[in-house]
């Protein structure tokens, strides 16, 4: 559900950023509109300019030509009221009929704040009178009582902050209300999608806003489960088939080996025939080992090999396998040098003792089968951080760069490029890798320092502090 929390954080983040952006945008728009609004002091200015543009001449009052044209372009009219008589002393040619020609003080106050017969009026003053400019009725709306309390003006910043806070709270509330239900529907779906790869998904309730999606997820889970079951069944069938074949082949192979062995011992036969019998015997043993390897490899591959996990001293296992190897080396052509560090001597790993012994045996057998004339095998065990490193290296024929590359990619691949009689295809290293993997470890192949082949097996150490668990490498 980490993803869900991340999604919620992301949404809240977007919401917060959007709120800030909207606020900034609003401020910008407000400033822009305000700037435009300041232009609306223009009718007052025009009225004042008209007042100043009205000159007294012998025949009366004359308005400048420019001003006349400007008023005409605005479809505005103007009257000039004398201070003493409160009568209209001058007016423009186009003057609505309803405009009075004389005024009382209250009417002047009225027209200054508002309208004359619905025409918005603006005033400009001269020494002798008052210029009144009237605009078309649909040109301006006038605020009749534009006055502000000083306390209010003083508190404007606080008020703005409060408004901002309220806005944010309101947006948050709206978000929560609208999204809670959505989240309620999404959360089980998200959890289900997260659990899909594990294959242990409980059926989702098909309800809520996203019912369609829930149905699809249930269908997908079902398909996956069926596929997993089929795959498991297939894997089991395959492993069982290999197991069955390897079982069925044992008795006939016993007969081959038994009779070949008997012929090999029969002194009545010629040397050549006995050699042939020896070869049959020898090849039968190879088939037998291959069958055993194939069986184990398939069981490890399909997790059908019983894994008896316990605390193990890897040095003990390796020492025993090495001793067994030397004990079975009747010709005495393989020399084993075992080196362990003090840390490694006491270190513990968690695993299956028999499987680990099998891995070591396979590595030693690998050196033997590729170096039939004998070699020196160095076994070193040391610890590194959270892992136990087991290296098995020989000074035998080694491996070419190309084959090492191929072998690293496919552990069961091994080309016979040296012309030695023994077939080089085997499952020994694959089994070693599978055993290492089953122990959360890894296997690395390399050229040996002494010209031979080196296999490094890394097994995680037992971590006592972490409740006896091992760490994945």
């Amino acid at each position, binding site marked *: 559900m980490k993803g869900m929390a991340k999604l919620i954080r992301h949404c809240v983040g977007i919401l917060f950023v959007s709120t800030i952006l909207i606020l900034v945008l609003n401020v910008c728009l407000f400033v822009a509109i305000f700037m435009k609004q300041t232009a609306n002091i223009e009718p007052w200015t025009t009225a004042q300019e008209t007042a100043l543009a009205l000159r007294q001449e012998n025949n009366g009052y004359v308005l400048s030509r420019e001003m006349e044209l400007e008023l005409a372009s605005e479809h505005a009219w103007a009257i000039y009221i004398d201070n003493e008589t409160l009568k209209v002393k001058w007016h423009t040619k186009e003057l609505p009929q309803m405009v009075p020609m004389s005024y009382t003080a209250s009417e002047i106050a009225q027209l200054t704040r508002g309208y004359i017969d619905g025409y918005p009026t603006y005033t400009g003053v001269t020494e002798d009178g008052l210029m009144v400019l009237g605009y078309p009725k649909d040109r301006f709306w006038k605020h009749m009582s534009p006055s502000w309390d000083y306390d209010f003006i003083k508190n404007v910043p606080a008020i703005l902050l409060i408004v901002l806070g309220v806005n944010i709270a309101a947006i948050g509330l709206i978000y929560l209300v609208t999204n809670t239900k959505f989240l309620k529907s999404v959360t089980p779906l998200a959890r289900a999608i997260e659990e899909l790869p594990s294959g242990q998904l409980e059926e989702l309730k098909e309800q809520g806003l996203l019912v369609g999606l829930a149905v699809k997820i249930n269908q997908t889970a079902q398909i996956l489960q069926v596929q997993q079951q089929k795959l498991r069944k297939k894997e089991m069938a395959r492993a069982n088939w290999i197991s069955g074949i390897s079982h069925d082949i044992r008795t006939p192979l016993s007969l*081959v*080996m038994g009779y070949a062995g008997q012929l090999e011992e029969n002194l009545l036969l010629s040397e050549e025939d006995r050699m042939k019998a020896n070869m049959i015997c020898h090849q039968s043993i190879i088939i037998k080992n291959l069958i055993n390897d194939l069986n184990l490899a398939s069981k490890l591959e399909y997790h059908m090999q019983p894994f008896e996990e316990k605390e193990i001293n890897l040095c003990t296992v390796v020492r025993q396998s090495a001793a067994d190897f030397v004990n079975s080396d009747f010709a005495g052509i393989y020399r084993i040098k075992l080196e362990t560090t003090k840390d490694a001597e006491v270190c513990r790993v968690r695993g299956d003792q028999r499987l680990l012994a099998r891995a070591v045996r396979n590595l030693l057998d690998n050196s033997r089968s590729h170096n039939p004339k004998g070699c020196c095998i160095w076994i070193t065990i040391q610890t590194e951080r959270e892992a136990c490193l087991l290296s098995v290296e020989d000074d035998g024929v080694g491996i070419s760069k190309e084959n090492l590359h191929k072998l690293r990619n496919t552990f069961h691949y091994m080309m016979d490029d040296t012309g030695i009689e023994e077939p080089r295809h085997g499952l020994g290293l694959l089994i070693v890798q599978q055993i290492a993997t089953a122990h959360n470890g890894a296997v690395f192949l390399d050229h040996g320092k002494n010209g031979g082949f080196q296999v490094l097996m890394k097994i995680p150490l037992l971590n006592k502090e972490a409740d006896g668990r091992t760490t994945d490498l």
Partner: protein
Amino acid sequence: MFSSQLKSRRILFVDDEQALLDMAVSILKDSGFENIKTAATVREAVEIAKSFSPELAVLDVMLPDGNGFTLYEKLRTFTDIPVLFLTALGEDADRIRGLEIGADDYMVKPFLGKELVLRIGNILKRYYGKEDPLVQLAGCVIDFARAEVIKGEERLSLTAKEYNILQALCRNEGRIVTIDQLCEAAWGENPYGYENSLMAHICRIREKIEHNPSKPVSLTTVKGLGYKLTVRKD
């Protein structure tokens, strides 16, 4: 390799494959074992066991009318002869089951004729041969019955730990016995941390069994792995 007395012991061979029975009998007869009877089913095996009184039984596990493990239990109701399982079931669980119920050995098919002969012979030797309590070494004789080392005229007593260590080495004479195995033989389960004590005991044993303990001949060290006891065979 095996005495004629051992080779004359009666052997019951049970397997449902007639061809394998024929081959096994042929191999055993070639090696000098004469008294062999075969059976292909549990019922037949029990009947023959009662009439033939075998001294060793080789049992297959998968039989047409039951399995070798139940046959083993049936045989145990009237005889305590040694039993060797010879089967195609090679899983560890099967081996462990076979050995746990009390079988003396467990062999998995396919097998070499020689191996079969050796295993049968060794079981017979263990059961019916007399173990010599005297072990001949290059410079002395170990008398396990008295827990003593006889060195010329001198008789040196072995301590309990020395006795256990020497016995473990003798059982595997000519083979490397690991440090861990020897520690286990001397100190039982969880033998970790006794390596230095083991070295001290080995030194003392060498003083008793070797002519020149600084240049051991009988009890040699295999560096990093363990020790090996070489027995003199006259």
